[in-house]
């Protein structure tokens, strides 16, 4: 036994033989909180106000406050007629909803009219005409979501017009109707009284 132990030759090592953590180990840096707004620098409290965020400006709200409610609030200025609406519809809606507003299965676009007196049958057809309780919903929805591939692209005039057309084709408005913020509020929907409150819990 010439060599007894290599302990002299062995480099001294500390725990876990870790590489010396010198310099930058390239630990990924965690995100820091970000404060964008100088305005809310007000002294914050623990319970009520955290001093976080800032007041929304009137302009910021107006830019996205697009909803229209049953009482007519939110209806913009402008107007449109059945005749104008027919043009809008033929050009921008008929390809999906059909020449007669009957819907085209392949596009997924539902019928917009028809279906009155079918709700209690075993083939209910729920459309704007037969089912919708409020005309405001029609303006609101077309304005925000239609035409499907260019949502939000219609002017207020165009939405008034195509609404007049759809409601006219559905026999809810006369063909000479012109819609604006005032006349819109007066529309009576056929199924306005067709809705009931949720009886649950307590009923099935």
């Amino acid at each position, binding site marked *: 036994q010439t060599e007894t132990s290599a302990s002299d030759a062995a480099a001294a090592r500390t725990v876990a033989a870790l590489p010396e953590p010198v310099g930058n180990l390239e630990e990924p840096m965690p995100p820091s909180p970000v404060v964008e707004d100088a305005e809310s620098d007000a002294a914050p409290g623990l319970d009520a106000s955290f001093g976080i965020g*800032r007041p929304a400006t009137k302009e910021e709200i107006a830019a*996205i406050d697009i909803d229209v409610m049953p009482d007519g609030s939110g209806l913009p200025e402008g107007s449109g007629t059945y005749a104008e609406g027919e043009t809008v519809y033929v050009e921008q809606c008929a390809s999906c909803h059909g020449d007669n507003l009957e819907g085209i299965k392949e596009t997924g676009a539902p019928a917009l009219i028809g279906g009155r007196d079918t709700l209690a049958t075993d083939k209910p057809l729920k459309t704007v005409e037969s089912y919708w309780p409020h005309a405001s919903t029609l303006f609101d929805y077309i304005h925000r979501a239609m035409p499907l591939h260019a949502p939000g692209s219609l002017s207020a005039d165009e939405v008034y017009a195509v609404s007049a057309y759809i409601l006219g084709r559905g026999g809810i408005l006369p063909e000479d109707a012109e819609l604006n913020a005032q006349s819109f509020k007066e529309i009576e929907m056929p199924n306005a009284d067709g809705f009931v409150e949720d009886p*649950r819990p307590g009923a099935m």
Partner: protein
Amino acid sequence: LLLSGGRARADAPPGAIEYPVQPDPTKEQGRLILDDGGYGSRSQFESEIRWRYPTDSLDSSWSMTPLASGHGIITPSGLHFERHHGGIPTIDPATHTLIIHGLVDKPLRLTMADLRRMPSVSRIHFIECSGNGLTEWEKPTLKTVQGTHGLTSTSEWTGVLLSTVLKEAGIQDSAAWILAEGSDAAVMTRSVPIDVAMNDAILAYAQNGEALRPEQGYPLRLLLPGLEGNTHIKWLRRLEVSDKPFMTREETSKYTDLMPDGTARLFTLEMDAKSVITFPSGAMKLPRPGFYEISGLAWSGRGKIVKVEVSADGGKTWTEAALQEPVLNKSHTRFRMPWIWDGNEAVLQSRCTDETGYVQPTLPELVRVRGTKSVYHLNAIQSWHVAANGEVTNVHA
């Protein structure tokens, strides 16, 4: 950091990366740590995927969670069900804001960074689309539990209580409803009752420990525990406080429940208690008689599940199943029951009870009141028929 090892390829299932299978993994080093760049992916041998019901419109469609291969109560984020009315927007969180206005003292504008600085909560909750099961009212239509029940998933959600933000803005006495609006192509909107908003509603920015998934509303969604999924507005950009509901298209034309007399129920928001056996379930085949662990999920929009019973004889006799802890409020609860299949025909059912005492109804009980045209809120007991050859099918029993 780049991916240095395998890559997504046509031959790996979605979400997986294909690596060569090792003939003997004890005889050679495996692939190197962090060759995934620091964020892992699932095994190449796992292939379950969300499934899209073939609606005509691809833009307005839904995909369903593969409940049959789920485990426990958490749904993997990659398999969370989806419902989109205008596709999945791609939104930079650095420019996304939430505006709160209407009947408030101080209209507020919050950046995502602002929201992340506010007091937060994390809660495990299910979301269920109230259209879950809509194909099943009249006859058993879809084959699998993914098709019949896959519009529900459970995640751990983190965010700011909506009440925290509303208090910051100062809601006025006349406040009764809040409009929540998304920034997708449908600019999706729903009206939320103020008591829900002030109770347990969450402005959620995280899901299962990381940021929301894009399909789930990245960077911000509303979470209304227990309420129908459509109300949990994704890609949330605006909250308007009002004294009246807004009567949007999604709460009038859709998500109203048509009764046999032609009237329709409005604002049927809460999801009643429901359960389903996920194993064994439709389109499986039991290879032979013997031991099987029946397992499934139960949930209620009104609180905790307190009991799940299982029947193997189509509802004639019931046995109480074990509830897997933790049993959480408005969350999927996993139940299990040992079962020896004797090789004879059987009809498997589960029936749950929630902490309000509500008992999940049978389909005939539900149809007696609601008919078969109400589309939404089908929460009846599900039946799976086990044939003598082991084939499991969706039946009305």
